[in-house]
């Protein structure tokens, strides 16, 4: 009976996962903003935001009266959290601009009294005022399950990648919906990972998470899994313990063929054994033997309709924590 229930639950999870890509799959609830805020305008708001944070002064940022702010998945007043503790920023900065929805995603390095954090944020702009700010700061002292230390490469490893600032030739671009489908397919591939691939990877695809290269790592001293390519890794079925990639939201930079995604990876802690595609059986140990969730901003660079580079900032949050940006997150 339990087995049947599990299968039913797994199917339900898959269905729910698929449902997430339906029309609600745009970042931020509500209508697209009616804006005349282009790429330079959006990036300017990011620069103003960063300057305002460094100055501990939200009034330096043009905000709407209805401004909402969340930090590490907790909604709080503008001026709290990093606004009070910031000591400026590192030089690393990546923009993903989506003028159509008035949103910009960005990666940076936050500094709090010399303690650096991998940082990712999202702004929404309407009527030339910021209406939404959502940030993740993966701080060095963040809580996390024992054994998850492999995701702590750190901000020192974040170097500018020309790839992220390259426009793609019009002839090599794919549509907005296709870009979302590629990123969403990546999450569907990971969720209860069976080895089946629901997206398209470039053979040179590389993934970095919190400053650690976790796929296609060229360092011969890196672990065997980290040296594997993006697709090869997921074809093994080794990530079955990610029981749900939940509440996926996307903003899209069509010109640069980039997608900036928000999601949660839930690990319910019950997947204790995993039979890989090659028939080998792995015992799942810490940190995946207990319920926990990753809060994630994940950037995808797509070239010729294939995922070429992935860069994520993630934090551990209590298992199944809902997003303040997703209605009826449950």
């Amino acid at each position: 009976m339990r087995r049947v229930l599990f299968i039913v639950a797994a199917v339900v999870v898959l269905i729910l996962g698929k449902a997430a890509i339906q029309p609600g799959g745009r970042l931020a609830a509500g209508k697209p903003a009616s804006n005349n805020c282009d790429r330079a305008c959006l990036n300017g708001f990011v620069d103003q935001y960063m300057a305002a944070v460094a100055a501990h002064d939200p009034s330096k940022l043009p905000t709407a009266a209805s401004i909402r702010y969340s930090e590490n998945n907790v909604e709080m007043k503008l001026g709290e959290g990093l606004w009070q503790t910031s000591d400026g920023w590192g030089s690393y900065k990546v923009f993903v601009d989506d003028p159509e929805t008035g949103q910009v995603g960005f990666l940076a390095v936050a500094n709090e009294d010399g303690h650096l954090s991998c940082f990712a944020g999202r702004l929404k702009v309407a009527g030339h005022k910021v209406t939404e700010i959502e940030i993740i700061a993966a701080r060095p002292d963040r809580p996390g399950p024992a054994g998850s230390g492999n995701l702590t490469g750190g901000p020192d490893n974040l170097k500018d990648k020309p790839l992220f600032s390259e426009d793609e030739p019009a002839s090599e671009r794919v549509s907005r919906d296709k870009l979302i489908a590629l990123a969403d397919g990546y999450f569907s591939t990971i969720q209860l990972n069976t080895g089946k691939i629901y997206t398209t990877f470039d053979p040179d695809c590389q993934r970095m998470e919190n400053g650690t290269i976790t796929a296609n790592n060229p360092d011969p001293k890196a672990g065997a899994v980290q040296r594997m390519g993006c697709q090869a890794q997921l074809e093994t079925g080794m990530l079955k313990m990610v029981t749900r990639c939940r509440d996926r939201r996307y903003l899209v930079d069509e010109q640069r063929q980039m997608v900036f995604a928000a999601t949660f990876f839930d690990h319910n802690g019950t997947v204790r054994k995993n039979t890989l595609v090659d028939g080998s059986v792995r015992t799942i140990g810490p940190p995946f033997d207990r319920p926990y969730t990753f809060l994630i901003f994940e950037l995808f660079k797509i070239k010729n309709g294939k995922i070429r580079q992935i860069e994520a900032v993630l934090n551990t949050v209590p298992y199944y924590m809902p997003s303040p940006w997703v209605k009826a997150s449950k």
Partner: protein
Amino acid sequence: MRFVRNSFVFAAALILTALASVSARAQSTAPPADYDANFNYDCDRACLNGFTDQALAAFVAHDPSRLPLAREVRYTENGQVLRLGDGLWGTASAVGNYKIYADDPQAGQVMFMGTLQENGAPVILNLRLKVELKRITEIEAVVTRKEAGSFARPENLVQPNPIFAETVAPAERRSRQNMIAIANSYFNAIEKGHASYVPFDKDCNRIESGVQTTNSTPTNPGANSNSVLGLGCADQIKTRNFQPDTEIRDRRFVVVDEERGLVFVEGFFDHDATLRSYKLTDGRTVQQTRTAPWTWQIAELFKIKDGKIMRIEALVNAVPYGMKSGW
């Protein structure tokens, strides 16, 4: 013949008594759907603790359906609303030996603080149940694990201090509101950095997540080099060592056990991390090592006797800064 008849009556009475006993036991966990004037709807200490033990067994069996649940049950784990059966329900593997209960029959609530195995790894569990009409309506679990950002030492929790199970003599009891006021004064004192209004017993001690954090020697496992850990409950606060605690938020005084002098509180310690260094009353300067905002979710039990705090036992869990309780 009369003897036979009497024996028959006696045997029948025994059977009826036995049946009644079975019925009473069944009644304690299976209230009737419709109002029954003969049903005992009250849930005393033994009844509440029985619900707790059933819940612990159900966690380990991964099966909430074996519990007498109300139609609407709310379950949270570390502040998040979860489906019954998710989270710890899927990973709890054995109940430990360390068990502290606090019972509040008036409010229909019971608190459990103890140890548990989760897929073989020791964790500390705080569990709160609300029982109405002998069915469970609320389950609130806070689990703390050995992990980055946590100082939990579940292996230190071997035998609870017997004081938590001791009945307080009627003359040494205080009213419910008075007990709440005493516990509340502790949090106010930490926020304000003075302890003069907190009625601590001179021998007061505190354990947090398995670590003794008062009157502790530097070699105590889990203790850091912060020298105020060697001080008692009152003296520690008087040093103004708790200045980084900017707010003790969303305090809920959910269980008051008047008979045993226990008050159980859930809440959050927020630290906005704006204080980079601070001075203690003895002149020492403490450099704050944490430079980013952080929050402890806390579940804290106070033993109060004759109006004095004798002992504090708490569970401390690292959560995202500013996180809400789910209640």
